[in-house]
């Protein structure tokens, strides 16, 4: 079967030709601009990919140190946590929701992992499991509030963001746990190994594995398709026979599990667990997803786009810092990127009409 298609299909040079005859009647192909728009509409990850390549080239020219192996290693580590949070964020945004509590859930889970192991003498694997359970429960709470109380996700997660932060501070007495007190298994995600000279941590590998697994789930399973359908048009999905609330709830629970893995990666990266770690991770994760071409209106976007988005954020922050610019310019650049990305999304979506 598979060899069969390899022969009958035309060579994969650009988009398959016959496929778009029908669509082309209804798309405006008259100008180069509208053709570009159609292209971006079809491949949402294309624009972030271009931005990333351009950014890397420019920062490489500005500062030769950008391509030093230590620096590349640093960028991947910086991206690992935000990139993992962006997976959870992508799932929620695909359902036309938003999760403001991703950072708070991650910090809560990381404090549970580190503290139960360091202070309460819980064995490391069990401590990780406890963190995972906390992540699942926190995501589940978001999901229940969104589906049962029918509150907008923005409001629900704004509330739970503060609740989770308060619980974290109470539970930890606002004190960090340093790496030397934490068992090796929990800080393992910070261990590096060389890949063509660049030090890569197991945390980065873990993030990539999560991307591969979740991209597979989103693209090749009914659940993934239903997540898109629910985000696309909730009522249509319901009438088609999809259990909308069940899909929504499961999205928040899965997001919680991913955030727990993010917590593990964060502990390795920081070689510590701090209750104040996650404050700007929320917005960075949303930024990554939005830059990555996922629409805030739901139903449109890819995980790979979010990974590109996380890399863009990481490269911008790193490159601007190397160029000797103050942190405030990094923040400025990220802010501009978000506005540009959302405007681009709006513009691309006009293809529909």
């Amino acid at each position, binding site marked *: 079967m598979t060899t069969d298609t390899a022969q009958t299909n035309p060579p994969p040079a650009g988009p398959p030709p016959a496929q778009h005859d*029908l669509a082309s009647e*209804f798309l405006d192909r008259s100008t180069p601009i509208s053709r570009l728009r159609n292209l971006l509409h079809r491949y949402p990850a294309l624009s972030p990919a271009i931005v990333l390549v351009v950014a890397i080239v420019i920062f490489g020219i500005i500062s030769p140190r950008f391509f030093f192996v230590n620096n590349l290693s640093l960028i991947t580590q910086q991206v690992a946590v935000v990139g993992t949070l962006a997976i959870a964020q992508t799932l929620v945004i695909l359902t036309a929701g938003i999760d403001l509590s991703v950072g708070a859930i991650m910090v809560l889970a990381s404090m549970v992992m580190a503290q139960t192991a360091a202070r309460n003498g819980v064995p490391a694997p069990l401590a990780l499991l406890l963190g995972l359970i906390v992540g699942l429960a926190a995501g589940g709470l978001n999901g229940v509030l969104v589906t049962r109380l029918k509150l907008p996700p923005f409001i629900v997660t704004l509330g739970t963001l503060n609740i989770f932060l308060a619980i974290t501070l109470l539970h930890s007495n606002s004190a960090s746990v340093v790496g030397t007190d934490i068992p090796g298994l929990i800080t393992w995600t910070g261990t590096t190994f060389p890949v063509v000279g660049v030090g890569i941590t197991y945390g980065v590998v873990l993030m990539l594995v999560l991307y591969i697994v979740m991209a597979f789930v989103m693209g090749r399973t009914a659940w993934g*398709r239903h997540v898109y*359908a629910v985000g*696309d048009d909730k009522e249509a999905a319901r009438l088609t026979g999809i259990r909308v609330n069940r899909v929504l709830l499961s999205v928040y629970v899965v997001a919680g599990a991913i955030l727990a893995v993010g917590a593990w990666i964060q502990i390795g990266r920081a070689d510590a667990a701090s209750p104040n770690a996650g404050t700007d991770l929320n917005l960075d994760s949303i930024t990554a997803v939005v830059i990555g071409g996922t629409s805030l209106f739901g139903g449109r976007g890819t995980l790979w786009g979010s990974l590109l988005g996380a890399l863009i954020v990481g490269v911008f922050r790193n490159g601007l810092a190397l160029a000797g610019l103050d942190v405030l310019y990094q923040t400025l650049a990220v802010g501009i990127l978000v506005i540009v990305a959302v405007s681009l999304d709006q513009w691309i979506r006009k293809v529909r009409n």
Partner: protein
Amino acid sequence: MDQKGTKLTTTDSSRPASTLPYTQPVLKATGLVKTYGKVVGLDGVDIELYQGEVLAVIGDNGAGKSTLIKCLTGAEVPDGGEIWLNGRQMSFKRPQDAKQFGVETVYQGLAVSPALDIASNLYLGRELRKPGILGSVFRVLDSKLMRKNAKAELDRLGISTLQDVTVAIENLSGGQRQAVAVARAAAFGSKVVVLDEPTAALGVRETNQVLDLIRRLRDEGIPVILVSHNMPNVFDVADRIHIQRLGKRAATITPKSHNMTEAVAIMTGAASA
């Protein structure tokens, strides 16, 4: 199916001429009530659909046609009344309950997912998985098979306006989207097919294709409920006509017993049956 030719003379105009007097309806509802706050959508509606017929439902805007369809097919749970399918009482809680019993519906808003392609839409909610552990354990979809089947199904149904099943719905014209929704219902409806204004956005040729499809379904043994504002179409294809007025059934007529003017008069309340 040779009953079609044998016209039984019956005094009861609410039964199709083609059905024996005491055949039980395939789908029947009695006393359906549905209110939305203070708005009464359905005010005690009865409806019967018999084997071998096309039952049209007509009525003014807001008469409760779509509400009736939704209550019959699980999209809304009625506040009161009973629904029977082949003599069994049903309580549809959600659309998939009705689908499970072979009742397929095209809702007025079409209920298609714009970002997904035609094949995915046809199979949405009942996806096919790969054989073996790939499908059973890893839940992998068999997209290739779904595309192949979708294409075959469109050919079988004679829906020529959809050529390529990998095109996203949002890139289709309004009429093509409607064709997708009709194809989905026709492909999976094994007991009853319900169509709420399936030809509203269609051209003359495409409308005729859908009307042909409706007749073919009926002749293959699947009775059809058709909601439409298009009187010539209704009188063309329907065996009986349910006239909905102000949330109630005003009358059930046949194209033989009444003409269009009389039907419109009943619809608007200018005359009674």
